[in-house]
């Protein structure tokens, strides 16, 4: 085991260190031996389908739940025993709720700003997420996307060092997602470490420095978005019309195959199609078929 974790005040200490984390609900093993390390200042995406254990893990890391076993350190402390000072250093954006309906955006942001020792200027953060026009509106009058942006404002107004975003853009239209992504990037530039769970592949690809793909409470792949897309290499799909029937081959050497096909067909190769699996194909393969033995032991 690396010993860097033994001096948590050093800048190299990870923001989050998870070892052998397990949590079950009755017979269902929601988190099944998770090992992850999130460095300070990175955007770390946890990507997986519903039920993969993303929310459970996030709730353990943010101190809402206690793990069955394993060790968790968040900003150098055990979240299940951490106090006010620790909570003042994190920001949590949980999945959507419809609470606090009778208060206005500005009232809520100002109120939450008071809870923290070094909060951001309420009006500035309201501007930042584009809610200035809605500052005086009671939250029951907000659209789903505006409501979600309010959740984010309340999560960042305390100037957190570490921000948990649990499926932040569910229900956003494409434009709202883009502006949300740029907000997250700005936060990272300002030095915030971001833990982002999502079931959108493109969100992880766009935002994350590293992506952990999880399935059934285990990590099945962990890499940079570029690294993940390299998993597609060497598996090109070649398809053509072989006298009325469609033939398909997956090959590491597509050029050689096409050269052979050209020899067999003096003119055009009928119905020729050459396709690289997309990152999405790789992802679906990782999280889809059960019983696949991937890199879960890394």
């Amino acid at each position, binding site marked *: 085991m690396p010993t860097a974790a033994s001096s948590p005040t050093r800048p190299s200490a990870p923001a989050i260190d998870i070892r052998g984390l397990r949590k079950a609900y009755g017979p269902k093993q929601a988190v099944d031996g998770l090992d992850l390390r999130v460095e300070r200042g990175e955007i770390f995406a946890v990507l997986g389908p519903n039920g993969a254990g993303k929310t459970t893990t996030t709730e353990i890391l943010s101190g809402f739940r206690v793990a069955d076993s394993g060790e968790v350190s968040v900003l150098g402390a055990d979240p299940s025993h951490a106090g006010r000072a620790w909570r003042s250093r994190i920001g949590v954006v949980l999945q959507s709720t419809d609470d606090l309906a*009778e208060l206005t955006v500005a009232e809520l942001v100002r109120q939450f700003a008071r809870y923290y020792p070094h909060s951001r200027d309420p009006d500035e953060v309201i501007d930042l997420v584009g809610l200035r026009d809605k500052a005086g509106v009671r939250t029951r009058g907000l659209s789903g996307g505006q409501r979600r942006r309010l959740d984010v404002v309340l999560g960042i107004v305390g100037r957190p060092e570490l921000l948990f975003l649990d499926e932040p853009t569910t229900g956003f239209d494409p434009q709202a997602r883009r502006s949300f992504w740029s907000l997250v990037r700005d936060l990272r530039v300002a030095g915030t470490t971001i833990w982002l769970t999502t079931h959108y592949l493109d969100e992880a690809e766009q935002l994350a420095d590293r992506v952990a793909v999880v399935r059934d409470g285990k990590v099945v792949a962990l890499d940079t978005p570029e690294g993940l897309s390299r998993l597609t290499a060497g598996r090109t799909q070649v398809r053509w019309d072989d006298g009325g029937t469609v033939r398909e081959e997956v090959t590491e050497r597509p050029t050689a195959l096409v050269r052979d096909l050209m020899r067999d067909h003096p003119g055009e190769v009928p119905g020729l199609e050459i396709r690289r699996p997309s990152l999405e194909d790789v992802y679906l393969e990782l999280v889809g078929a059960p019983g696949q033995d991937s890199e879960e032991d890394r």
Partner: protein
Amino acid sequence: MIQRRLTQETARAEASLPGALRLGLARTSLELRQFVRERDAMIFIFAYPLIMMAIFATVFDGQVVGSDVPGADGGIPYAQYFLPGIVATGIMLTSFQSLATSIAVERDDGTLKRLRATPLPATSYFLGKVGQVLMVSIVQTALLLALARLAFDVPMPDDAAAWGTFAWVFVLGTAAGAVLGVAFSSVPRSGRSAGAVVTPVVLVLQFVSGVFFPFFSLPGWMQSVASVFPLRWMAQGMRSALLPPEAAALEVAGTWQHALTAGVLLAWLVLGLIVGVRTFRWRRRDDG
């Protein structure tokens, strides 16, 4: 092995955290704003006792209670006799019903969970609730007394001792109601059912505790049942403060029973505290 320890950053944050009392005041102001904007709360908790007072005083105009009581000068007008019970009901609504409902809703809709993720101390959250309950109770009680005095000519006591009694019954009743409200907030299974679960409890207690009928006219078993609960004692305590001393003859015991009143209210206060502290949850039951 990762040890539990606070980093230097946490220690720095610790030193500059805002104080719990200051945050309690901030919470009070937010809670009050929420309360007055919530139409249900304003009608069924704030306005209801005032409306009941107006209805009772109007319907029973000219009638008296206890005309055979010696020294009561031909009996006590209905409006005067019922005012203390309505004041007690108001306190129960603004403390017990208000908190039992609002905390159940806040637990269900995620408000509590959201607050739990912030450095807001639990103390400040409860201080905010207490502040809200106190403010609403004081304003409501003052309006009730003013309504009774100005619209229905109910005489107010003019000696300090009576107001002293009024004050301790008010404080003890509000405190017991508030902690019992916190404890009871765990009973409704969801925020939507909170009103339906809490309201009948309050209504039944009003009927058996002598709020709408003179307590002495209720059947004995009903009096015994009511005597277990705080509202009967709050109403009796308020009568002891707001009615002339001769009216004590109208009580079941023939006296005001101040020691017993204080004892029952204190017992409920302690019980509410113990149960409330043990059962309070930041999350819904179905949320792990």
